[in-house]
């Protein structure tokens, strides 16, 4: 086979380990003052511009020249997009909310009804990453192992995006199309994520090679108990080659059950089967990953159930 250099002309792809750059290619720097201006710039650049918020995911890709936008639209200073706001029963998270804002929030609505969010924040990278990275940025980056993406799917979040003609709402279940691929259009800006109802008893478990590393597998669960039995169950899993998904088979087996160790294990087993199928399709099938999904799901369900029973505490590790 012959190898011939592929001259990069704004597309993706790289030549392999021998040519790994660390300095970004040139780009024009644009700083809009409003959401409207930001969208206008997206349109004007006809798909060759990218939104820059915290930069913690985008900039490493640019340094490696895996992504080569001709222009960056810096939105980090746009007003009114950095907030955690109670909205009826729900919580609205502004797109430019930093991970750290969620982590250290002292708002009882956040720490109580949506306490899974601050708990999950501590899994994200490290403190310096969390001071700059943004909630919206994570969703747009759509890494399969992302904690925010997982929780958005778990809790049926609604993702609000603004384009040139309209603002629309995309359900989390429809938002993630694949690793690093979303249902957003190139001319849209993510402005807000809405969690419609509280997740009083929720837990997130993940496994990474080292603390703060990208997750190999993530699993999350939220349950409600009535008379000691599961009256509502949500189970979601992420990591690897497929974006986060709900696993209805695991939820079904929990409904009506007493949340014993065996019940949690059964939910884990259902997730393992589902993950195996997903990853086989994606070409990433492997026994270890399936088993991680199984055990992490069982742990997450058990932790959520313990919280519902009032005798657990939210663990971080």
């Amino acid at each position: 086979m012959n190898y011939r250099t592929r001259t990069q002309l704004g597309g993706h792809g790289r030549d392999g380990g021998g040519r790994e750059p660390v300095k970004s290619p040139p780009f024009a720097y644009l700083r809009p003052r409003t959401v409207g201006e930001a969208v206008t710039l997206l349109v004007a650049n006809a798909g060759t511009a990218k939104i820059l918020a915290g930069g913690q995911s985008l900039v490493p890709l640019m340094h490696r020249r895996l992504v080569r936008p001709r222009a960056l639209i810096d939105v980090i200073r746009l007003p009114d997009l950095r907030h955690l706001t109670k909205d009826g029963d729900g919580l609205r998270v502004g797109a430019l909310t930093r991970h750290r804002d969620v982590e250290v929030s002292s708002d009882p609505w956040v720490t109580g009804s949506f306490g899974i969010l601050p708990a999950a924040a501590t899994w994200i990278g490290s403190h310096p990453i969390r001071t700059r990275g943004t909630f919206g940025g994570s969703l747009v980056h759509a890494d399969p192992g992302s904690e925010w993406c997982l929780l958005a799917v778990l809790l049926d979040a609604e993702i609000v995006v603004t384009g040139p003609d309209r603002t629309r709402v995309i359900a989390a279940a429809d938002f993630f199309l694949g690793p690093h691929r979303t249902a957003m259009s190139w001319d849209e800006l993510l402005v807000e994520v809405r969690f419609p109802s509280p997740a009083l008893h929720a837990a997130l478990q993940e496994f990474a090679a080292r603390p703060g590393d990208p997750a190999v597998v993530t699993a999350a669960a939220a349950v409600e108990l009535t008379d000691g039995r599961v009256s509502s169950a949500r189970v979601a899993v992420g990591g690897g080659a497929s974006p986060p998904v709900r696993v209805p088979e695991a939820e079904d087996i929990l409904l009506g059950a007493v949340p014993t160790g065996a019940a949690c294990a059964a939910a884990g087993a259902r997730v393992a089967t589902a993950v195996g199928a997903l990853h086989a399709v994606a070409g990433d099938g492997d026994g270890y990953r399936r088993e991680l999904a199984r055990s992490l799901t069982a742990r997450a369900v058990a932790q959520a159930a313990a919280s519902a029973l009032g005798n657990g505490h939210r663990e971080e590790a």
Partner: protein
Amino acid sequence: MGVIGRSVRRLEDERLLLGRGRFCDNVDLPGQLWMRVVRSPVAHARIRRVGTVAAVAQPGVARVVTADDFETVPRIPVRQVVPGHDLSPYLQPALACGFVRYVGEPVAAVLAEDPYVAEDAAELVDLDLAELPVALDAQSAAEQRPESWRGSRCHATTVEIGYGDVDRAFAAAAHVVAVDVAVGRHGGTPLEPRGLVAEHDPVSKRLTIWGATKVPHWNRRVLAGMLGVAEHRIHMRETDAGGGFGVRGEIYPEDVLVPYLALLTGRPVKWIEDRAEHLVAANHSRQQTHRIELAFDRDCRLVGLRDEVWQDNGGYIRTHGAAVGMLTATMLPGPYRLPAYRTSVHVVTTNKTPCGTYRAPGRYEGTFVREHALDVSATRLGIDPVELRRRNLLDDAELPHRRPVVIYETPLVLDGKDYVAHFDKALAAAGYQAWRDEARAARAAGRLVGAGCAFFVEKAGLGPYDNAVVDVDSTGAVRVAMGGTNVGQGIETVMAQIVAEALDIEPAAVTVVLSDTDLLADGTGTWASRSTVVGGSAVKLAVDEVVRKAKLVTGELIEVSPDDLVVEQGRFVVAGSPDEGFSLAEVARACDAVSNVRRGLEPGLVGRGTFVVDVMTYPYGVHFAQVEVDAATAHVRVLRYCIAYEIGRAINPMLVRGQLVGGAAQGIGGALLEEFRYDKRGQPLCTTFADYTWPRAADLPEIQVAVFEDAPAPDNPLGARGAGEGGTTGCGGAIANAVRDALQLADGVGALPLRPDRVWELLQRASRPGPVE
């Protein structure tokens, strides 16, 4: 208390804490060009054409060079020659010539006005490569004769070391245990990327180089020959280095490119590699597959050991030649009584990054393999692994012990004392029995907890010599230059302590200059844990010479015998009469040229020392580990870790501990987390720190250290044994043994690193036991 033996605060710290370290990237010269290397994107290919036209046309690009510009420059030679092995067919050129043999191999170099432009232009260099089949496994590649070797086999050489009648010992043995075990490819990967800055001054015709370390004098000699420049016209400047570990400082292709291009263009040339380059271009190490066999008599005593090793050495043979193979084979018997022995190490070239030495080279691998095989043997023989070691360790009556092998052309004489007694002290210091009891109780309660240990022998103080100069000037300022280099280990402080003790002054009052080839014309460098032992001994000789001269001159001036003089707080005075005498400054001034010539001395208050040593010294110790395996994730957590170490004499105990703990962090990384992996096309999968994973602070337990000074080294005036590598040596063995204990495996763990997916496989096997071999 004297200065030697005191945990003096480091002289290096102030500048490093203030952010004023003299790292290579801090050097910016007016008019400099930035070099960016264009590297092969494929693992093995014939080069049809390298097109530089588009790159050269970029604004800000000064030049683009290929192998055609280097036709007169020879390939990079082997520095650590092991006699009897001709490796010349396998040496690497500065830029790939005709063929590329690994992803990351330098093919061209771009010189530009700034590093961003240089990266832009490097992308435009057009490579037309005809890909060839890749060899990624040493054993299966050995007999291949790829085009790129022009007739030679991939199997470069075999190092065979042995003594005694091994085959007879095995035939007669009561028990034979065979274990197949492998060490994964990993490496030192210092935090500071490599770099070099070179400037040629056309008026003085001097070539000045910043960023050279480890063996600057050797490198200068080689460069002089390669570039056709007189040695005395090349000046390697003093430098701080962000970690060495054996990786930084050898001559790499880039170390030839930078000075050559400075000469060619007449402008300073600066090169700083980035992290992704480092992970594919700087030396890898450790990748070996062993089939080790131990033969025992009825009392579980070793009667023979043999090992066949396949070493994956990557795309070329670099400056270490067959040294890692030699070190593996010579040091494998370790601390044990062993009447018959044979190890063969087959060094094979493959299409991966070339390999070299990395902290405890050959010994990390060998200690792991041997100590793990001992634990497997203990299970097979039905004997406790601690007792098995006690029965086989060399004891007081047997030490010093001449191992009938030659290492670095010196006889291997284990110069320690009573390894059995040391083992007992180490067990007590660690409280190891309690760790084992704890582990057993945890297992009974359903947790996967285990304990393991590894006894190791290290080597230090490699000769044949090193040089030092101590001088005192007319202001009384004391300076020492030594032939080693600063790689972060604190060697400046140690040298200052040795001088300070002799002159009875504060170490902070001593200026230490390292790795400056103008100030010291010859030195042997910092590697193989030699700088305290050999360099320090040379410094001792040099400062003793200063004291001798100072006493001579003082005695003459005040008319007393030099034997009646003592050194007190930097003054040479009559014993008992501190007012009768002179300060360092006064003595130095009295050593003017005329007076000294009349005394038969060279001008100035100068002492020179060359310490010649024909044997190495052999520190030793034990690593202990307690681990827990998470049954759900197969993650291994190190709960407890302890290193016991015989240092001979600790010049600075704090620095010794620092070396042992730091070394252990790397060793644990190699045992659990670090591996350079490749896909089946030879593409490296680890090009960032997210893929090549070092331990972070939360991955390590508190590491206990117990340092002993029971056995001062007999062959150097300091009695020191060196501490640079022993912290790393035993980690593979201790961790593997602990994991095996945690999982209660019948067989070995198979390979390092014990990453979760591998441990998960072991867990599966353990729960469905097959027939025992």
